[in-house]
């Protein structure tokens, strides 16, 4: 584990002074000059590596030391440890030393690999990588017994083409294609002779070659693959393993049909007809060009791996390898089928069989993702039904495996990669699920205000919530990208509820898991831990509450939401609000809500906007009582309420009853001041004839009276009793809104003027003086004064307080809550101009 000593060692390595360093360099040079490769040299080189790597600033090594290190690295006689050390020091240190490395003269395979590691790390140009690659390929090509093929040829090539795919010419690509076929398909099927020493690149021949075995111990029946086990391996078997390891990358880089014109189509037809008769034999495939031949052999290799994965491995490590091989095989088949669709017909029987073999086994869940990808890409070509695959993927995965972080991650990546396709084909899933929904029992919850079950389409994606709820911090950025694709007009409302209930879901999932372990250990676990089973866990186990928990855990959308029951659920879960998982989940909700509202604003029609506003008002106080959660959510609601109003100003008229209910109750000021302030501002801004022709004097008067009563209550009635528990901003917003409304119904002007004149006494009362700063109090009085003066000129007031809708941009209201500053600025901008006109 990490110790204090380690820290001081790093400090020493970083702060070593130049004099000491020069001495140290000198000592190492001397050791290397004397060819002393004993412990002292190894120890010194280890320290040198620490010195060059411990700092983020490069250290320049003296040229003589650099030369000696290079010589050490390039000498086949050096021990491997010394080569490891010299290559790592050269990689970390400066100056770059690639140009001086004699790659062309290297014959020894191990040395080539270590030298290549320095070149790959420090190459400045393609030419340097090309030289390295060509040198390696030459050895592969000439096939002379005295020229060793570097065992790491393929990994080195793979690294080189990753940096720059065009280091290889067409000839080279063809050469590698041919060699890959040889290594993949025609590696020896006999065991290599076991070696007594760790001779790295010797290719000994066994006297009595034994056949290779399968992972379950049976004798290998077909060609060699990475799933064949033997006492030891021959060189071509090693190359087989390296070839398969880099195959996917190679195909992705070079197996691309440049001209997918008519010629390609013709050929695939021909290939298809050949393939459909018999599976290609090696003699027929020998006629194919290298690229097509590699495809063919790679495909056969993958088919064999799929077959081999059905065997029960003796070693656990091999079971894991089988899974990884399946993922790789299916992915490679997918790549091949994409390039040449004629393979699709050959691949599907294999993929289908694999799916039916694995679909019931959750241990193979991660293999199902590439299978699903295959279905997604090719089921249409082969006219294969993919519904069952996706139904399983989207239903049982999140429901049963939500606490598997790796699976969750891969699953979400799958959705992210295929977002566009899934979104497009979503109606298809939607059509296939209503029946299922009708059959599935609805939770026996008395629905107080059921929403229409309109969300079948999102049935499947509704479930992904569980991944998110459980793994919030890790997945939040993924869901920010995914969320827009999950949103559709029919699912928007329920999705909003789902997001708001996310912390609830996290809590209930936690209970679900704990309930399982609690049942297993029969209370002893809890008692021995000194903690009693929390009441929420008891409740979770009670049949009485079962329906409610089922509702939160529901696998399907469209069952509606209940207000009363939700509040009860929040009460039950009260002992979970400090659970870190729930808190973390709650912290992600506001971020996702922002994404939600930004997306929904792009397609929402008037009806949906009205619904959304109702949900905002309803849910603003119906949230789990987690620290800061309500405040944060209300802040998001506030900003998006204004955005919605701007999109559809008539909603103020259409929802006037609900909005006034909210604005008329002083308790809302204390519980959700932020949202309250925004509602009041929106009423003042949009309740006007210019925004909705249905707006009458009665509407304005009733709103005015409601707000007047509130302002009266908080400033005149209660202020004497206790200090105000609201911000001065709220007072100014209320005053301004009243003035705005009065300017639109001028009978109200005397009332509001009288009221505003009383504000001075409010600011002078003792509790207010104690609570608000002098600046705030002055601002209130000034605002009241300005408004009173403005209302003395009703026509001007109307112009200033109700700007025309066409000239409305949000920036004008940024600083204060009225359009007054803008209008004043505009006027004062005009005035000097007038003056110059007059004088001129």
């Amino acid at each position, binding site marked *: 584990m990490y110790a204090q000593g380690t820290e001081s060692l790093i400090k020493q390595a970083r702060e070593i002074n130049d004099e000491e360093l020069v001495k140290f360099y000198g000592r190492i040079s001397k050791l290397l000059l004397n060819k002393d490769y004993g412990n002292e040299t190894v120890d010194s080189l280890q320290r040198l590596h620490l010195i060059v790597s411990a700092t*983020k600033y490069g250290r320049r090594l003296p040229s003589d030391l650099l030369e000696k290190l290079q010589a050490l690295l390039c000498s086949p006689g050096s021990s491997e*440890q010394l080569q490891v050390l010299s290559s790592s020091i050269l990689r970390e240190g400066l100056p770059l030393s690639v140009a001086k490395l004699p790659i062309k003269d290297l014959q020894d395979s191990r040395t080539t690999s270590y030298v290549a590691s320095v070149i790959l790390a420090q190459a400045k140009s393609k030419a340097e990588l090309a030289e390295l690659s060509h040198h390696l390929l030459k050895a592969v090509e000439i096939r002379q017994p005295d020229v060793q093929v570097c065992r790491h040829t393929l990994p080195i090539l*793979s690294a080189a083409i990753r940096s720059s795919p065009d280091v290889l010419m067409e000839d080279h690509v063809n050469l590698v294609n041919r060699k890959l076929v040889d290594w993949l398909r025609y590696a020896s099927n006999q065991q290599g002779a076991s070696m007594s020493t760790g001779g790295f690149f010797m290719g000994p021949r066994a006297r009595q070659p034994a056949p290779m075995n399968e992972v379950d111990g049976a004798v290998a029946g077909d060609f060699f693959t*990475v799933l064949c086990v033997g006492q030891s391996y021959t060189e071509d078997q090693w190359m087989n393993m390296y070839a398969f390891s880099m195959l996917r990358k190679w195909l992705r880089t070079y197996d691309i049909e440049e001209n997918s014109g008519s010629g390609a189509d013709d050929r695939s037809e021909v290939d298809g007809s050949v393939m459909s008769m018999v599976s290609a034999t090696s003699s027929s495939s020998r006629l194919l060009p290298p690229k097509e031949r590699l495809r063919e052999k790679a495909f056969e290799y993958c088919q064999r791996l799929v077959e081999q994965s059905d065997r029960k491995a003796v*070693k656990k490590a091999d079971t894991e*390898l089988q899974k990884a091989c399946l*993922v790789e095989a299916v992915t490679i088949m997918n790549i091949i089928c994409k390039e040449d669709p004629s393979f699709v017909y050959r691949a599907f029987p294999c993929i289908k069989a694999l799916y039916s073999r694995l679909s019931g086994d959750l241990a193979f869940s991660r*293999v199902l993702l590439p299978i699903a990808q295959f279905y997604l890409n090719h089921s249409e070509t082969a006219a294969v039904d993919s519904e069952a695959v996706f139904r399983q993927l989207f239903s049982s995965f999140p429901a049963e495996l939500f606490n598997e972080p790796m699976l969750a991650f891969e699953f979400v990546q799958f959705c992210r990669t295929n977002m566009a396709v899934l979104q497009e084909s979503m109606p298809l899933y939607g059509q296939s699920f209503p029946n299922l929904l009708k059959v599935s029992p609805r939770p026996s919850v008395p629905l107080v205000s059921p929403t229409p079950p309109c969300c079948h389409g999102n049935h499947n994606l509704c479930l992904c919530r569980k991944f998110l709820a459980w793994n919030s911090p890790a997945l939040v950025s993924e869901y920010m990208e995914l969320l827009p694709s999950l949103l559709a007009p029919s699912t928007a409302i329920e999705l909003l509820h789902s997001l708001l209930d996310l912390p609830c879901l996290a809590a209930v999932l936690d209970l679900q898991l704990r309930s399982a372990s609690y049942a297993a250990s029969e209370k002893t676990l809890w008692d021995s831990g000194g903690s009693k089973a929390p009441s929420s866990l008891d409740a979770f186990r009670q049949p009485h509450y079962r329906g409610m928990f089922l509702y939160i855990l529901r696998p399907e959308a469209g069952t509606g939401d209940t207000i009363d029951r939700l509040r009860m659920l929040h009460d039950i879960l009260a002992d979970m609000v400090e659970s870190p998982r729930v808190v973390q989940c709650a912290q992600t909700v506001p971020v996702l809500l922002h994404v939600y509202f930004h997306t929904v604003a792009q397609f929402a029609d008037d009806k949906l906007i009205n619904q959304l506003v109702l949900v905002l008002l309803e849910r603003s106080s119906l949230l789990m009582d987690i620290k800061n959660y309500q405040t944060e959510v209300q802040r998001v609601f506030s900003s998006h309420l204004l955005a919605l109003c701007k999109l559809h100003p008539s909603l103020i008229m259409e929802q006037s009853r609900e909005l006034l209910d909210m604005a008329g109750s002083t308790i809302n000021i204390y519980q959700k001041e932020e949202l309250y302030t925004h509602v009041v501002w929106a009423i003042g801004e949009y309740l006007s004839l210019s925004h909705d022709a249905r707006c009458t004097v009665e509407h304005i008067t009733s709103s005015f009276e409601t707000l007047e009563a509130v302002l009266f209550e908080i400033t005149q009635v209660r202020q004497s009793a206790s200090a105000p528990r609201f911000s001065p901003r709220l007072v100014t917003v209320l005053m301004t809104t009243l003035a705005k409304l009065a300017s639109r119904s001028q009978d109200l002007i005397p009332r509001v003027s009288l009221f505003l004149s009383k504000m001075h006494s409010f600011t002078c009362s003792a509790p207010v003086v104690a609570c608000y700063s002098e600046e705030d109090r002055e601002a209130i009085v000034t605002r009241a004064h300005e408004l009173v003066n403005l209302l003395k000129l009703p026509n001007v007031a109307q112009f200033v307080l109700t700007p025309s809708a066409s000239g409305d941009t949000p920036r004008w209201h940024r600083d204060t809550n009225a359009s007054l500053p803008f209008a004043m600025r505009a006027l004062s901008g005009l005035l000097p101009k007038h003056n110059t006109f007059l004088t001129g």
Partner: protein
Amino acid sequence: MVKCFLIHTLCPVSTLSAKESRILYCRVFEPMDQLSGMNTDIIPEEKRLLEKEKLATIARQVQSTCSLWREARGQPSVEPVLGEEARALEEADSGMLRLPVGDPFPEEHFLLWLGVHALGFSMVCQADDNLLLAEGTLRSLASHCLESLRLLAPGSEVLLKSDRIEALLHHLVPHGQLLFINHRFAQSLDKELTACMAK
């Protein structure tokens, strides 16, 4: 292909701020910027500095993710015991993160991490890599490191014997290539490694 492999701290380090992580070992298999898009005029010192800063970002990200994960899991961790590497690895926290385009690399990558007590083992892979294989490889690397460098005991071998990790990576992840090795291939590679380190 593995882009880089790191061993770093997950515990508070006295000389660093709470959210920072000390990188104890790092190996970059691929230059951080592709050659085609790379400015060849860039001074090697600056390139190196940039590279190290990017690695530090990754370590920090893993540290914060791991601490959130541990907080959510809520079980107290037990003290590490030397000799019980296998158990420590079994109980290790693990996860994956996506490194989006430009943050910190020009292309999208996946980051796999393994938290064993106070140590983090992190591996950055390309977005189209076989994550199941990568996960197995990371576990195997971590297991070898824990055992051969006695990482569960207090000591500084991770700094001074870093050549062991180098050799390990050179055989198990040559030049960043993830390998499909069955237990027999693994045994052969282990033998080679032992031979390399015995000298």
